């Protein structure tokens, strides 16, 4: 048991938490008047909950070896759609939510068709659908902000309502993270998702329906993105045709950072949560210390490179990594030939 505990607390597994502690100490010394306050903790969690959901949306596709670049645009779509329905129709709020969610899931299905059926590389395919979704939003709204007094009612409570000091999106995030954790860690499907991401051919030949898994992963990410988008629109109090844009890089940063935590290279929910809090604490602290915006971006970039480099070192010691194999999908496990560069097989697959 003590071994297990030691293992669970090892720097290799939760380096992020140690870095987080160090940052809290650092900022508490740097800006003692404002940083070490309960309000700061509240602010970090409340402000990062929607970004966290965007990150959670990416986990399952990435674990299955699929990129979903369209996530932020799906967020925009569902938010605008929900706000538009509330403003321009007499439909009840729940129906507006259902309509917006259906649209988001629809995009997920289209992503699945593009990536799985048409066999277009997921990075390119979802980039393209992202453009199309954005086009749809701009066309329908004429790039105008969808807003009206009607949004101040029930719609605004979706994200603004507080429960014991935290806004509802914090709780949504916890629920989604729990669901993803259960899915990936404690179901057969989760194991198959990871296997698909590690080696699609081997997994297919082992009798797993990898196409279904990839398709399902894309639908799931759009579903989570859709919900995150509604929460975002509610928080903003309007349907904004650029609402999701700023979430793209942050979400990917949190997920990749998360994959270096807890599960030794596998994309996972709680690791992503650590990533979100870590990045959020850093940027919030820098903000309170009156550092300019560019310092915050520098921080994000440095943290990402440093954590991945550290994981890379660990991985070289351990001899195996999902992250590395994910980055060179379908390649042989060991470079047996250090002199001669990558073997032919390591060329990324384009389907």
């Amino acid at each position, binding site marked *: 048991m003590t071994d297990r505990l030691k293992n669970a607390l090892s720097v290799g597994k939760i380096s992020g938490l140690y870095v987080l502690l160090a940052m809290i100490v650092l900022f508490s010394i740097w800006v003692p008047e404002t940083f070490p306050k309960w309000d700061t903790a509240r602010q970090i969690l409340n402000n990062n909950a929607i970004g966290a959901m965007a990150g959670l949306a990416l986990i399952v596709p990435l674990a299955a070896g699929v990129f979903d670049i369209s996530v932020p645009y799906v967020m925009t779509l569902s938010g605008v759609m929900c706000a538009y329905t509330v403003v321009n129709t007499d439909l009840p709020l729940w129906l507006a939510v259902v309509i917006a969610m259906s649209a988001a899931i629809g995009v997920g299905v289209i992503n699945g068709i593009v990536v799985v059926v048409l066999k277009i590389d997921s990075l390119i395919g979802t980039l393209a659908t992202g453009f199309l979704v954005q086009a749809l939003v701009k066309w329908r709204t004429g790039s105008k902000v969808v807003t009206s007094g009607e949004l101040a009612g029930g719609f605004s409570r979706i994200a603004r309502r507080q429960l014991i000091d935290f806004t509802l999106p914090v709780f949504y995030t916890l629920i989604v993270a729990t669901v993803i954790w259960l899915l990936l860690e404690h179901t057969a499907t989760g194991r198959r998702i990871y*296997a698909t991401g590690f080696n699609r051919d081997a997994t297919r*030949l082992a*009798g797993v329906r990898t196409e279904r898994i990839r398709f399902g992963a894309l639908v799931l990410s759009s579903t989570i993105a859709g919900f995150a988008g509604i929460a975002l629109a509610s928080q903003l109090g309007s349907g904004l045709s650029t609402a999701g844009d700023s979430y793209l890089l942050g979400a990917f940063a949190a997920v990749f950072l998360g994959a270096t935590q807890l599960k030794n290279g596998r994309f996972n929910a709680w690791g992503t949560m650590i990533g979100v809090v870590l990045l959020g604490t850093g940027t919030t602290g820098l903000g309170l210390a009156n550092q300019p915006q560019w310092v915050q971006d520098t921080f994000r970039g440095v943290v990402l490179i440093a954590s991945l480099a550290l994981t890379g070192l660990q991985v070289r010691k351990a001899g195996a990594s999902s992250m590395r194999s994910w980055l060179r999908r379908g390649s042989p496990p060991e470079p047996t030939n250090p002199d*001669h560069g990558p073997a*032919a097989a390591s060329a990324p697959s384009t389907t």
Partner: protein
Amino acid sequence: MHALIGHNGSGKSTLIKVLAGYHHADPGASVFLDGQPTTFDSLGHRGHGSGTRLNFVHQDLGLVLELDTIDNLALHGGFARTRLGRVRWREQQRRARELMAPFAVGFDIHQPLSKVTPVERTIVAVAGALQGWSSDHGVLVLDEPTAVLPPHEVGRLFEIIRGLRERGAGILYVSHRLDEVFELADRVTVLRGGQRVIARPVEGLTKQELVVHMLGDEARAHYRADLAPASKASAVLEVRGLTGRFLRGASFAVYPGEVLGVAGLPIDGRDELPRLITDARRAAVAGSVRMPDVSTDWVDVDSWRGDGLVILPPDRAREGILSPMSVGENLSLSSLDRFGPTGRLDKAAEREFVNEWIDRMTVITSGPDAPITTLSGGNQQKVLFGRVLAVEPRVLVMCEPTAGVDIGARQAIYELVAEQVRQGLSVIVSSSDVGDLEALCTRVIVLHGGVVVGELEGDLLNEHELLHAMEGAEPEVAA
């Protein structure tokens, strides 16, 4: 010409990797080159000292198949450049021709390597390793160069290797195949458990003695599974007019409790056949299949789900193991439905299953949580056998079941399969290693030109007849 042989796990690969500088040698080790002490670090590196050095051709060859011969040679040896850094392609071409000239190969050096035959790729890799060395100095290390070559191409490679020796090259030849040692080598070193067992001239050594040295005790070089010929009353699987890239309407049937071998060359469709009957849905194929006791209707092979069939893929590293996962996760992948079809995955039950199969397959591992990559090739293969056998298939389709597996583990694998066959499993074996077919099969179909041209059974099922039939000659008894 020095052969280095030994089991998987005997330390061959580790030795080669130490020599290549991929692993570091423990302190206290010493190495001599040309009688001079040197360091392990400098061994594999180019451009140091007199040009004396080791040149490696690794098993995976280290080539980029999308590129042509010229580019691949340049990647190994450097590009000819102008002072501004522009590549001088004409010069590059000339160099490539020069390098390839001694090998007298006829293929176009502008072709991407994916279009040339495996032996030609090996030759390009050898040429790449040899460029720029002075021929009477240095050692060429060949790591299992024949592992992926069809029989008729092996001879061609051997000629080239002999030619290199005549030019004065020292060659360290790593192999699993004992025959190659006798055919090529002057001296042989046997490794077992990380130690040198013997190092002596090949002359005067018998195959039996060599096997004994490798295994540490008496073992049969010619294993033959103890299997009775199957009854042909009712087939478990029938295939009609199977057509794909190489196959041109092959038809055959598999009977219960039978091990059916598929002999032939890749261009005859040997490698294609297992894929078409198990994983055909994405390929342009024709043909129909049925399993008579499931349904008497013929099903088009491109819409066939292959229920009841399971494939052991030929390329273990690329299509078999999931390298980032543990031994246990690799074993249970095909059987996950048992531990929670819809809901929670029962990890205790999974663990019990994994431990049971590790025992049954005699996998040597530190435990179910060990990364699969820590296992030797033979043990990885046993894990994959566990994965496919655990789903209790009607028909097991094995491709290259013992590729990169040493003799000891080979026999263990043959025995494991034979045991399942005695209990009623039907097996299809496709292998470039005639030894696999001889050891295991109760019947062998011979492919030539994409169709089944013959069938060998009983006493006719031996290495000589098989090779004879595969070379395209009419087998002496056609079915």
